[in-house]
Each structure stands twice: as structure tokens, then as C-alpha cells.
């Protein structure tokens, strides 16, 4: 009993430490970019709604997660960056992030896990300069599977955040 409590306390501490460490890591990465984007829209150009259809990065509206994980993998950093820039460039734009899970585990727990994934992307976008009131998170848990076979390749496709622009 004592050992278990100790282990959970240590686990919690590690989790908390990891979360803090990650936040601190993310901010300095973004900070140097922020000034360039505020001064550079003329050089690089601000996004317009047309870019949502034509820009390869902005057209990507899905990011995927590892099993039971909600951290944003580095391979999706560019997706986070371009959507954050879009939200910065278009303060009137609004986005819903739909968090999803695979079928393993219980439906209600997966609602929580889907929300955690949605929040992870929302936090990353906000850390990259998007405003919190531009982003809404909805969790569908395992209810909106895009693939219904019981194997890892299918599960991988279902563990995702979908980005939906409600106002472009």
C-alpha cells in the first residue's frame, strides 16, 4: 500500500515535471519566432482563407497520437506552426479541435482522453501565438472512428485530432 502510494506520488511528480519541462521547452522555441512573424507578414505574407485550400500545410487538418498518449509528436510541429500562424494572421478565424481515440478501453474514459488530445493541440497553438478564444475543443472519444478494424493500423488512424475551421 505504502509502496503503491509512493510510486503514484513519484509518477505524479514525474508527470508534473514533464508537463512543466515541456511547457518551458515550447515557449522559448516559439518566442524567437513570434517577433519575426509580427514584423515579417510583409515579407512572408499573411494567410488568407484561400490558403486553407491551396497551402499544403494548412490543408493538413489531422494529427495523430501514440496509444494512450496526448503529447504532440515533433513530426507535426510544422502543422501546429502553420495553423497557429493562420489564427494569428486572421484574428476573426475560429477553429474547433475534435479529439478522438481508438476503440480500446471504455467509452467514457476515451471521452476524457480525446479531450486531453484536443487540449494538447489547443495549448500548442496558443503557445505559438493563437488566442484561446479562437479555439474550441470537443471530444468525441472513440465515437467517430474513421476505421473500424481491430488492428494497430486502424487504431492509429483513429487516434487523432481533427481541425475544423468554423470561421475562416
Amino acid at each position, binding site marked *: 500500500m505504502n509502496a*503503491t502510494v509512493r*510510486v*503514484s506520488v513519484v*509518477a*505524479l511528480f514525474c*508527470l508534473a515535471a514533464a508537463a512543466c519541462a515541456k511547457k518551458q521547452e515550447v515557449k522559448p522555441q516559439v518566442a524567437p519566432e513570434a517577433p519575426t512573424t509580427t514584423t515579417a507578414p510583409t515579407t512572408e505574407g499573411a494567410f488568407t482563407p484561400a490558403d486553407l485550400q491551396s497551402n499544403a500545410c494548412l490543408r493538413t487538418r489531422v494529427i495523430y497520437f501514440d496509444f*494512450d498518449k496526448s503529447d504532440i509528436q515533433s513530426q507535426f510541429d510544422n502543422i501546429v506552426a502553420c495553423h497557429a500562424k493562420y489564427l494569428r494572421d486572421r484574428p476573426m478565424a475560429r477553429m474547433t479541435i475534435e479529439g478522438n481515440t481508438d*476503440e*480500446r*478501453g*471504455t*467509452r*467514457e*474514459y476515451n*471521452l*476524457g*482522453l480525446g*479531450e*486531453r488530445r484536443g487540449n494538447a493541440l489547443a495549448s500548442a497553438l496558443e503557445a505559438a501565438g493563437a488566442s484561446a478564444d479562437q479555439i474550441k*475543443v*470537443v*471530444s*468525441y472519444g472513440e*465515437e*467517430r472512428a474513421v476505421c*473500424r*478494424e*481491430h488492428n494497430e493500423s486502424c487504431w492509429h488512424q483513429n487516434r487523432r485530432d481533427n481541425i475544423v475551421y468554423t470561421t475562416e
Partner: protein
Amino acid sequence: MRMPKMLFALIFALLAASFATQAGAQGLTVQIVNGVPSAIPISVVPFGQQGSGPASPVDIAQIVSMDLNRCGKFRTLPTSEVVESPTTGSQIKFATWQQLKQDYIVVGRTSYDGGALKADFELWDVNKQQQLLGLSITGQGSDLRRVAHQIADQIYQKIIGVRGAFDTRVAYVTMVGLGDNAQYALVVADSDGYNPQTVVRSHEALLSPAWSPNGQELAYVSFESGNSAIYIQNIATGSRRVVSARAGINGAPRFAPDGRRLAVSLSFQGNPEIYAMDLATGALTRLTHNLAIDTEPRWTPDGASVVFTSDRSGKPQLYQIPASGGTPQRITFQGQYNANASISYDGKKIAMVQGNGNVYRIAVMDRSLGGQETFVSPGNLDDAPSWAPNASMLLYAANEGPRGVLYAVSADGRVRQRLVLGDGDVREPAWGPYRNP
């Protein structure tokens, strides 16, 4: 591009049609997966007809037999081996039934006047040649099968000593179609799957049906508004109200045993926490305070505490907390993943989904036996255990290929019965409370 779309629409229409006929005509089909040789041998002799009215439209003896078989405690004599057909106690030749190694025999008669069905039945101890029950049960209109379930309940109680739970109802969710064509329904049926009635339909997901203690209402989660919201609906009248449609998750409703409070999991304060809602005022009492996912609250039978799922230790495990709030105690220590508890009426047994690797099975933890655990389902993706009100059986959801099916399993896991609904996907079973005859 156009052809496949039309094809898909056609397939969907066919699926929907087959779903509708299945649901209307026969309800859930029944299949015993394995039997128990040690179960009590009992013969339910086909009932005779009393009077000159029409024959009973339902086969009472067959329904009683099915009920007794699927609970795992009885083994009925197959009809082909029933060599004599007594319909009253005085007609029973006990030597015959002793030779067939039967412990009990049930005989009876029905009379039917087109509306009401009356069944007189007797339960006899074969070895003592003694009458244990002699009762008359009447049913009306569309509820004729209830007469048989009530007879099975009387027999169960007399022999086992615990109230029977055959004359009860179950709720579950069905889904047909995929993506934008998905059609969900919350259905209420008899405990054997017959007489399915759709309570609500939706194009968005429905989940977590929960019965009110009086059996008149269901609380459930619907995504019809675009986000999860909790509704309470009267089954008979269809009237319903939203009880929580806050930002974030509105999930996992469960009525308290007194029916006045609803335990829920809400994330409007940042992450999913357990709350107790006063149903008269809507006031919320927050029970948990943790950054983890806290969900699936279940009241203990005394209403004094709540068992819930939390991943505060890393993976989901079950915890118990006083219903007024306090410090949660972890109660599960076996298995990597424990969630979605169902607590038996006496509080002794907690059924849960237990995951190890990619295998999720229903485990039953007996708290009166020091937390000893047994698996009652084979996996691999089993979910949503729900006790019968007498804890003789459990319902749970399983996957078979691409579709979801429900199983009823005896509390010891030895008798399983599959309940399949046509081509639809069936999930989220919830066993209702006792009904008043």
C-alpha cells in the same frame, strides 16, 4: 465517384431495413455458448390449455425454460426428452421424472381470452414429491411474455432463495450505417432481448444509458447538439430534459439509489471531475479535485460513496470516495487498466473492464473475499458490464468482427448467451431495476 456513393446508399438502406425488421419481429436472438453440467436439473413441461378459448400466443413453458437455462443455475430437460405431459400436480408420475434424474418439475395451464392471459402453474420437488409453489399469474395485451418471466422469477426465488430478475428490462444503444449515415438508437427491451422499443434516435452518438431507480426514466449522453450533453428521458411518455450541456465533457450519468441525485463527469472546470447533481435544484457538488481523468461514477448501494475511474496513478484504476467528498481510496490493484465499474446490489461484487495489453475482459472483484478477481468474459474488446438487480447475471458488450454484440453471462462466468441484433452494432447495455408485476 457517383456510383460508389449510390451503392453505399443502397447498402445502407438494406442494412437499415434489415435492422428495422429484426428489431420489430424478434428482438435479440439467443445462443447459449457453454453450459454447466452441475446446474440444477428441472423440467418445465409444456403448459396445457384451459377452457375453450384460443391457444396462448406465447409458449410460456419455453420462455420459462430459456430464462432458467441462461442464468446458469438450472439445466432444463430438452423438450424432446419430455415423455409425459402432465399439466397438473395430480397428473405427475414421479417415478418417470426420478428416472430422468430431475430435481424439480414445473407444470401448468393457460387460458387466453384474446386480451388477458392467465397461467396457473405448480412447482414440485421430484424426490420429496412435494408441492413447493402453486400460483396463478395474469398478463395483459402486449406484455404476455412477462407472465412467463414472472413464473421464472417465482421458481428462481423458491429454489435459489434470491429474488429472480427475469421480469426486468435492459437498455442498450444500437448503431447502423457509418459516418454521416450513422443512425443511433437507445432501445429498451425485456431482459431476454424481446419487445425492443426505441426510446430515442439520433444521427450522433448516444452512450451511457442509466436507469432511474424506479425504472421510469433513463439518463444518457447524446452528441446530437455537436457536443456531449446529458439528458433524462421518461421511457413511457418520451418527454425529456437536458440536465447538463456545459462546455467540455458532459458524461457518465448515474442515478443515486434514492433517485434524487445524479453522479456525472464534467470537464467545464478544465478536466473531467466527478460531481453529484441535485436533480431538484441542479446544484452541483464537486467530489474530485485532480488533474487526471475522473469519470464513470457508480454509487454504492447505500448511496454513501461513489466508485469511479481515474488515471491519477498513470493508467485508469477504480477509486472510492465518500458521496459528500473527501479523499479517494484506490480499490483495484490487479491488471494494468480497470474501468467502467458495475456494483452488485449488495455491494460485494464489482464488475469492471480489465485491460492487459490489447486484451480487455470483464473481471469481477469480490470484496467479501478479500478482493479476489475472476474473469467472466473471454475478450478481446469487452466493455460496459452491468449487473442484473439480483447479481445473478451480467450484461456486457463485445466485438465480433466489425460489429458489436451483447452477452449475458452468469455471475460465475460459466454460462454465456449472445444477444445479437440483426446487422446493427449493439453496445452500452444497462440492466434495469426490478419491476413491479
